[in-house]
């Protein structure tokens, strides 16, 4: 509930204005050679790590932008990539 997210367009806003879009795993793996296992890994397997995680968020009740942030899952706070306070 107390999560604050810095939207690149709107600035610091309450977390419940945003929609979670999963861990940032990079672009969808390409093409014909994609194995079902690799597809599964991309779509469903998450690291769920206790620490700094890169995530997609959408400012649903604001500008509508999708963007990535780093979040420390232990403190539920947005941080810089290396874990410092954002």
């Amino acid at each position, binding site marked *: 509930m*107390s999560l604050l997210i810095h939207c690149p367009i709107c600035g610091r806003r309450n977390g419940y204005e945003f929609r979670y879009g999963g861990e940032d795993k990079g672009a969808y793996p390409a093409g014909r050679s994609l194995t079902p296992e690799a*597809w599964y890994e991309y*779509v469903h397997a998450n690291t769920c790590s206790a620490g700094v995680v890169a995530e997609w968020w959408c400012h649903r009740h604001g500008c509508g932008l999708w963007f990535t942030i780093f979040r420390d899952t232990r403190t539920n706070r947005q941080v810089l990539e290396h874990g410092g306070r954002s």
Partner: protein
Amino acid sequence: MKRLTSLPTLRVDVGRPVPFVYKNQTGRGFKGDTIATALYAAGVRIFSRSLKYHRPRGLFSLDGESSNTMMTVNGVPNVRTETTLLAEGAMIRDQNAIFTARNDLLGFMDRLDRFMPAGFYYETMHKPASLWPVAAKMVRKAAGLGRIAPDFRFSGACDEMYPAADLCVIGGGPAGMEAALAAADQGLRVILLEARPWLGGSFDYRERGSGEDAPLYRQAADLASRVSTRAAIRVFTRTAMVGGYSDNLVTAVTEGGPDDPFDYRYLEMRPRAVVVATGSRERPLIFENNERPGVMLPDCALRLARTYGILAGREAVFSVGHDLGLEAALDLSELGLPVRAVADVRTKGHDPALVRGLADRRIPFYPGWAAAAVEGKKGVKSVRLASCDGGQYRILTCDLLAAAAGHTPAVEPLSLFCGPLAYDGQTGYFLPRTYPAGVFAAGRIYGLEAPQNIRISGRVAGLDAAAFCGADCRGAADAHRNELAALPMGRPASKWVAFPGPWRKHFVDFDEDVTGKHIRQAVGRGFGVPELIKRFTAAGTGPGQGGISGHNLPLLVAAIKNPSRDRTDIHGTVPAPTTVRPPLRPVFLAAYAGSGREMVKRTPVHDAQAWEGAVFRRVGVWHRARYFSADLDVSEEVDNVRTNVGMLDASTLGCFRIFGPDALSALQRVYAGDMSKIKDGRVKYAAMCNHDGCVIDDGVVIRIGENDYMFTTSTGRAGETVEWIRYHTRFDNWDFHLVNQTDGTGVINLAGPRARDVLERVTDADVSNQAFSFGCWKDFSLSGGIPVRCLRLGFVGELSFELNIPASYMQAAWDMLRKAGSGFGLRPFGVEAQNILRLEKGHVILGQESEQRTNLLDLNMGFLFSRDKDIRPVGADALLQAEKDAGRLTLVGIRMTDSSCVPPDGSILVDDQVVDPVIGYVGTIRKSRALDAVVGMALVERAWTAEGTRLAVYDGGGEPSERHDATVVRMPFYDPEGIRMRM
């Protein structure tokens, strides 16, 4: 009882009586009274019986720190009468007693305490298991707090508010008000929260200032008027902070007063800085029978007199450990309460002026003494005072013992922000180790006692907060800080714990009846830290949430674990207190739920349909017309569409425009089919899948210009569609724009064999089958120039025109069609009729025929999936895999053998010949009048999909549950060639 009426500090209006009913007798309080003070003035001393031992309990404090004074008011149990204002005609009952709190038939429980050691619930009550149900019943009857009626419904009005501020000051005492003023001076917008109905804190009811300053209550009034008239300071009284979270999220609940339109209002705010100035309470003194009615905190006795005009007893003894206790004794003596003696656990460090004052009034003063025991069953009869070394004692008769061991800071709000607390040897308090950025504290919470110090510390905190928010005032803050440092600091608080003993009737926690003996037992069992002892003994788990036991519990643990040490020097041996968690006060869940308004959208022709008798239901965020007729099987509406013509309000369907150089690419990504093949003037049916290939949406796409498309979505998906498309194109840097036109577009679906006849009457456009055939779309105007975009679709299986109309024209268009159709039998129909009509046609509704695991192929809609597009659509990889998977369910049409049997939607299909007898389930099934049969759609395993296969529908709702025969049949059931919709 006659009240003191001439005190300047009085907060009750003795000219305004407020009647109430207590145990079928009428009483009278005054405006400004809380329920507890009105009862006390009326002579009530026993307010309740305790949870476990049924001991009598009375007024002990005035801020709701214990369950002692929780009562049932107007049928609502566990009302905290200490903090609830007396309302006219309140019906008050005591609780947790057989007969009454005064004469409780379960009072004998008190003598059974040796059979109820710490943790006895865990250890005693589980063997033999067969006895447990009986025991549980008895325990539940005897123990507990108020009883809630099974049909109780919360009837209060709740509200919510999300104010914005730079600074939130928690606590409206002198320090908090100074902080608010100092910050407002620096240009900050300030919110000030005060739990009591008025500002002033500990100054509000005190007379004595230091030196030549104005009396404290006058200082408080002066500050309060300055705070209340500052536009930049918003004051919320009767508002207790209940939660504090990371990054300064503060939640609070306001209890509505007589003039408020709500009973409870939830507040949530995210100030940039927080100042906590919640002051301090008194630490209860632990001695034998320390919670007898007639024992109360000195501050409680003082406030009863000064704020409410009530002298708490006829003869009082004081046992204190702090100057405020001495001040209370002296003040009450001056107000006319005979004080027989004042004991103080401290041997030195008293305020000499107060000691002199006691001597002047010939009140015996015992430094280095404390109360050891109280005699009396239902009230105080006498007190045994003893010297702290145990060498001497005296017994004094009295009916009031004002006792406290010293101060304890009201540190709970602060600890929510700051985390674990540590023992501070100087003050004897538990204080935060670290403060997060933007959180400051001020006032008595730090152990400050001198009024001047309290006020300056408030200014320092306010300026610190302002500097944190960017104001240029660090110098001013430091100047005040130096001023504060130059003033004499407060004396160390008393660290007294208790006289040695078994502590059998020495109550540490009132709510849960936890005694010193229980703590001793818990430590003896190896529980070393308060956090575990709390769980084993339940100390601090009651409604007061540690308000009574919070400070004493770790001190007792230290004293038990280190019995040899001097009990007044326990520094270094004190374990950390238990963790405080929100909510800090009991809060109705309804208060958290807030106003609970149902947020719903209405279509532009909502009222028009309501006039025609529509019954609405919620679909997604919308209210949609469900049916217009009295018969629940909507046969008239269905028949009318099949034989004449009907009109359906489909405005809730999502309507979007996408345009820009990469608009087509974006459509290719999210739609399974190939959108590059949309022909001009033609409508393309299309479906969206998720990564698993499961269908999440279907609708139609049309091309309205160069790089310009319009598409529709189902009602439930409209809100998420923009997000969805943006998400699945987030790595592509494509250039396109998306506009959600749902709310601005109304849709009327005109359907039935006479639909063209109706439409021709309201437009000059050529809507003949030659000029405008099935599967096409066309822009034209209705009479009067109403622009429409018309799509010829066939969801209900008849000739139909889907008219997309700007929302502002909807009412006019509806009326016009209604009038034009009067000669053709036109009548509106609702979603129930549509459900049957489309079912007869074999058209699926996502979420009815499909669920989360159903993919495009399962629904026989593989034709909507294009395998070789340039842009790989979402779900393609999963669909390509699923094509090889024979273990999936497939959608089939079924017909019941018995045409009078309509099983419920969702019924399972079974085959007893196989190991796992559940072979599928029914989506929708209805009686079809057009077919004179019961038909439905079902998802079944591959082996049962062949036409003519016999299936058994299991109707679990029947008693005895039954199996009904059904057969797999070809779809669509109605008009298989599709002639009628192409007419």
